Each structure stands twice: as structure tokens, then as C-alpha cells.
């Protein structure tokens, strides 16, 4: 087997940890990720007692060979994209740690926890106000969007 690059080593380590001790309601597709370390599928369940109780979501993580210095590209995929003020109907997520505030000390696990917490604190299910315009004009890669973050405590 060829020697692993630093980004592969790190991803391998993260995958093992996420498979062994996943946060509640989060499961990674380990077989798929082991075959291709740069593309992960993560299943997420809506937290009981929140607006998303009983719903199931699928997240896709894409990594470059500069991970963890480059943030992962994270989108919701599949039939059920959560209806949330920070989630566009094409699956793009407006979350500062995915771009501006990414740090190499964060991980797939901390991104999952942030997304769970973002969903759980939602008080009203609705799409972002600019959803239709954004979805029509945006780049396929959400990291190419210049996001304007502000704290609206949603």
C-alpha cells in the first residue's frame, strides 16, 4: 500500500473515530468512505423534541488533499433537504465554520455537531429569504459563495 498523505492519514483517523464513537443521531457510511476517503456520506436524524424529530437527512462531505487546512465542502443531498433559514433548497448550508471560520482543529465530527445544533435551535421551518434567487445563480460548490454571516440566533 502506498504511503498515506497527511490529509489521508487525518481522514482515516477521523473516520475510525466517527465510526467508533458517533455523536447521537449521526452515522457515517464507513464502507463508502474507506473506498474513497475524499467523499463521505453522513446520515443524520432530526433530534427528538425539535422541529425535525423523526426526519432523516443525508450530508455529503468532499475533501481536497489540503484538508484539514482547506475546509470540507458540505452539502445536504437526497430527497429530504431540511427546511431551515440557513439551508438552501439545493442543499447548500450557510454556516461560518464551513468557510471563513474553518480551523484545522475542527473535524467532521465538530461540523456534524454544529449542523445538529443549528437544526435543533430552529424555531420556524422556512427557507432562506433569497432561496430561489440563490439556487438559480449560485456555483455548484458552496465554498465559492461569498457568504454574509451575521448573528441572527436562528
Amino acid at each position, binding site marked *: 500500500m502506498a504511503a498515506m498523505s497527511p490529509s489521508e492519514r487525518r481522514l482515516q483517523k477521523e473516520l475510525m473515530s466517527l465510526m467508533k464513537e458517533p455523536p447521537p443521531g449521526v452515522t457515517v457510511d464507513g464502507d463508502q468512505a474507506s473506498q474513497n476517503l475524499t467523499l463521505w456520506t453522513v446520515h443524520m436524524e432530526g433530534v427528538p423534541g425539535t422541529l425535525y424529530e423523526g426526519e432523516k437527512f443525508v450530508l455529503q462531505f468532499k475533501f481536497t488533499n489540503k484538508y484539514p487546512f482547506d475546509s470540507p465542502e458540505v452539502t445536504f443531498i437526497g430527497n429530504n433537504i431540511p427546511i431551515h433559514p440557513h439551508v438552501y433548497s439545493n442543499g447548500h448550508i450557510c454556516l*461560518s465554520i464551513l468557510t471563513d471560520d474553518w*480551523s484545522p482543529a475542527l473535524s467532521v465530527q465538530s461540523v456534524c455537531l454544529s449542523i445538529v445544533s443549528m437544526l435543533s*435551535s430552529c424555531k420556524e421551518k422556512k427557507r432562506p429569504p433569497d432561496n430561489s434567487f440563490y439556487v438559480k445563480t449560485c456555483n455548484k460548490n458552496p465554498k465559492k459563495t461569498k457568504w454574509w454571516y451575521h448573528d441572527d440566533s436562528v
Partner: protein
Amino acid sequence: MADDASSSSGCAGNLIDNSINQDELIMKQQREIEKEISETIPLVGELEALSSLEKEYNEDPVYLLKVKDLSSKYKYIRRTRPDGNCFFRAFSYAYLEHLLTDKSEFDKFYEIAKNSKEILVALGFSQFTVEDFYETFMEVVQRVGEQAGGSPDSLESVRAELHDKFNKQGYSDYIVVYLRLVTSGQLQTENDFYQNFIEGPRTVTEFCRQEVEPMYKESDHIHIIALSNALNVGVRVKYMDRGEGSQVSKVIAHDFPEGSKPLVHLLYRPGHYDILYA
């Protein structure tokens, strides 16, 4: 702290017509500038005579006076890449270089460095992400320790090795990340004190997540105060900016922590830090 960082990230997509494409163009241009910088300026450069600064300010009498003032105390400068990490890179390079010739300072630092990971994990940083950066950092520190106080010949070769490592992203950026985490750890440990330095409504933890832990975010006084305190290392920063008044020809110095004996000397010009040598 590393986990659950969603709370501060509100959202506004992009409401103004055509602004997304405008933004894409701006981001593309930004990436091109970054690429050009990374292709033309090494992470840490070679030692240069201080007079190389004069050439930069040929047409600028105020700055030439300041360079003159600076040259009464310093002979050389070592430039770093202006990528937002320059303070951390300049600081660690200059300090490790100093440790090569100061074994007792090395021993003191080694204890602090060795214990730093536990402090971060206790604060809630996840063990396995911190570990990678800690291990690479300690590998470089230990290599310095093995050679500290050695003969001039062996010092020469270990200096070259250090320089080489600082210009390899796989070492250099790991060191920067680790020092960013140590800085964040210090800010969060002394939370009450540092809150006074943070403008606006952000908490210390939010500030750390947004301005300290991510790469490429520029350093301010608060970063320098925190890191110099965390590692107990004196840093003197010479500020070369367009200050006016009677001090116009002088370059003001500031020591961190206040009253400490500086072992690292840095030159600050707006937005950037380089290393100075006497």
C-alpha cells in the same frame, strides 16, 4: 472550543441582484493574489541587511528616518510571507532560533510546551485534532533541543534544517496551527481578563473561533499578549507606521508581556510582521 461552533454563524445569503456573481469575481481575484504571493514570497526568507528596507522607501523621507532609527539597534531583517499567519510564523522561527543558543531557556520552554496539550484538551479541544499539530510542533522543538548549545558547525546545519522546515507547509503550517490553539487556550483560560480587550458584543470564545483558531486571520495586540503570556516568552515589537508628532522619526517599541526581557524582536508594518536581528 473546537466543538459545536454553530451558535455565532447567522446567515444572509445574498439578497442584492447580481451580487453573487460579483462576489465570485472578487473571490477569484482574491485567490489569484494569494496564489501570486505564495509563488513569489517564501514562508520565511533569508537573512537580509536592514538596508534592504531603505530601498523600499526611497521616495519616502518619513519612513527613511524611521529605518535610520531602526538601524541604530538592528542590523538584519528576515521577511515572512504576508499570509495572515506572519506573526505566528515569525515568532516561532525567531524563538526556536534563539533557543538553539540558550539551553536553559530551552529547558524552561520545553516544560511549558510539553504540558500545553493537556491544557487544550481540558478546555474541550478534541484530543485527536490537537494531537497531530502538537506532535509535529514537538518534533521540531525536540530537534532544536538536541542541538541547543552545540558547536558552531552543528548549529549552522541545524539552523539550515530549521529554515527548511519552516518553508515546508507540512511543518510550518502545523506549527502555526498549534500556536493558534495555544493562543486560544490562553485567551479562554484567562477569559475575564481578555474580555476587556474585545470590542463589540463577541465573547472570548467567539473571538477565538473567528479570529484566532482559523488560519490566515491576522494577529493583533491581543494575540501577542496571549501567546507571549502562555509561553512566558518576551517579545519586542517595533512599530513602523505613520505616527506623527515629535516621535515622527522614531520607531516605537512595545514589549509583551510588559516589563519582560525580549528574546524575540519583530518589526510591525501595518498588517505585517517580520523578524529583526541586532
